[in-house]
């Protein structure tokens, strides 16, 4: 299994670009168009492209973390992002804005939530894609 040479070369070139774009979309989110969901889709499209160009095993190696673990960690981040508000006596998921920033990026609970969504989307999409691709390969 595997795609043509053109597809393989393109996938290699596109993967870092797409990942970079996904991180850009992720950090830009909340105040401007972007966010965890769309960023996760872009990132998973990069890995899905690898599945088509090479095979599921190569893409799995590239992802390094098991897609299901990724889903779990993402869900955990998303659920935990709602908790800090509760310690301050506010409702679950109320946004907390902390006075910490790295250049243009400021740290806050919506960002943590978005990162969680990002991981969940990659994990979910890749689990489905791997399941379908591996069923096909066998």
């Amino acid at each position, binding site marked *: 299994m595997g795609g043509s040479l053109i597809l393989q070369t393109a996938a290699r070139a596109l993967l870092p670009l797409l990942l970079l774009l996904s991180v850009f979309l992720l950090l830009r989110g909340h105040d401007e168009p972007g966010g965890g969901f769309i960023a996760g889709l872009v990132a998973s499209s990069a890995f899905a492209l690898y599945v088509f160009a090479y095979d599921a095993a190569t893409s799995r190696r590239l992802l390094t973390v098991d897609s299901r*673990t990724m889903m779990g960690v993402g869900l*955990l981040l*998303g*659920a935990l992002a*709602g908790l800090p508000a509760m310690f301050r006596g*506010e409702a679950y998921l109320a946004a907390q804005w902390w006075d910490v920033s790295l250049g243009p990026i400021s740290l806050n609970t919506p960002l943590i939530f978005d990162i969680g969504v990002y991981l969940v989307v990659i994990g979910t999409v890749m689990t489905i894609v791997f399941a379908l691709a591996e069923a096909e390969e066998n």
Partner: protein
Amino acid sequence: MNALVALPVVIPMIVGALSLALWRSLPAQRVLGVLGTGALLAASVWLLITVAREGVLVMHMGEWQGPFGIVLVADLLGAIMTVLGAITGFAVAVYSIGTVEESEEKFGYYPLLHLLLAGVSGAFLTGDIFNLYVWVEVLLVASFALLTLGGERAQMEGAIKYVTLNLLSSVLLLAAVGLTYGMFGSLNMADLSDKFAQTEEHGLITVIGMLFLVSFSIKAAAFPFFFWLPASYHTPHVAVSALFAGLLTKVGVYALFRFFTLLFDQDVGYTHNLLLWIAGFTMLTGVLGAAAQFEFRRILSFHIISQIGYMIMGLALFTPLAIVGGVFYIMHHIIVKANLFLVSGAAYRLCGTYELKHLGGLYRSRPVLGLLFLIPALSLAGMPPLSGFFAKFIIIRAGVEVSAWPIVIVALITGLLTLYSMVKIWAEAFWKATPDNAPAPPQASGPMWPLYTAIGGMALMTVIIGLWAHPIYELAHTAAEQMLDPAVYIEAVLGETR
């Protein structure tokens, strides 16, 4: 502001995510399964006690005020349902230690279990109709995956029917939500109840009400939308069957109770009369379907349907006593029905089959299991002093009070036929001698004590509900009072902004 309301949703979410992150370690997932559902049970009992003491609790998610933000509302009905969901989840998690195969655990049994519980709690506690749709989808996706764990042919065939009809019902629900928003510009249940009361367009409201009715009737497996249930519930792993039997149809019933007390009470003569017809036919078709079956879980599946009829009958009569009966019936039914499925799984562990013709001699070899079967079985049939007697008694009494004789007669006949089915299972599986063609029992893969613990615990609760029926009745009574007086609910949700 009360953070307590979010706990029954957040706990299974976090535990589910943790067990997903601990994908490789099955022992850790098992421990987390029991601990997580135990924590969920503790949190929901705490919630119920608080709600019973202090009245309706509301939390505005993310501090966005209603009616614009998403609210979680725990009134007594919601809190009672959450506790029942947690009880079932906890019993199933304990039971799973002894029965779920490692191959099924590897495909994410525990994370899915927690996700399902999160969806169920969310559906019970949300105060927003679109959010209800979202939670229903969450629990549906989890249930799809649980239903097909293992990938047997029968599971695939059952799952296709289950998935198709449940998706159809979800789309109807979504369409109804969209139409409601288009007409009234709100999704908040309390706000909608307010708006429905003020508008003159009763015709439109009834149309939307019918869309919701069909959608939730499919979920609740009411007549004539129940065909997916007996086609699928006997196919998955028995722990999954028990979980589904206890909780999934009850989400539909809960939604019917919520919508047809809080929102659609303008044209009671039409809507609730329709519900009464549905209730009667649901009872009869369910129990007659069961009479024709000779497979343990198929009989139980048909009985879910007939029992749903009783609950809808409570809602349809729409008198205070009838609603009390409906709530009491749900409390009794979830525990008893899940337990009967758990017993069927224990019988399978011992004999290797669910076919009544091939089962036998269980009372001689396992008298304790026989006793543990009799408690929920007789309770289901309505024998005093078990929980089912009081549940049926209240509902039938309510029917007599308003002289609804046809439905009372149907309910009594259904009770009698339920007894017939339970006696059939007892005589075939427990009483008669082991038949010659009995299959060899499967290789035991886990310990038996978790099975007995779960079954025994649930049976104990059935007895307790029966013996101490009065406090439970009082609880159901207060819940019914809240439901019949939407002003309490509306005031609790919108009080701060109005």
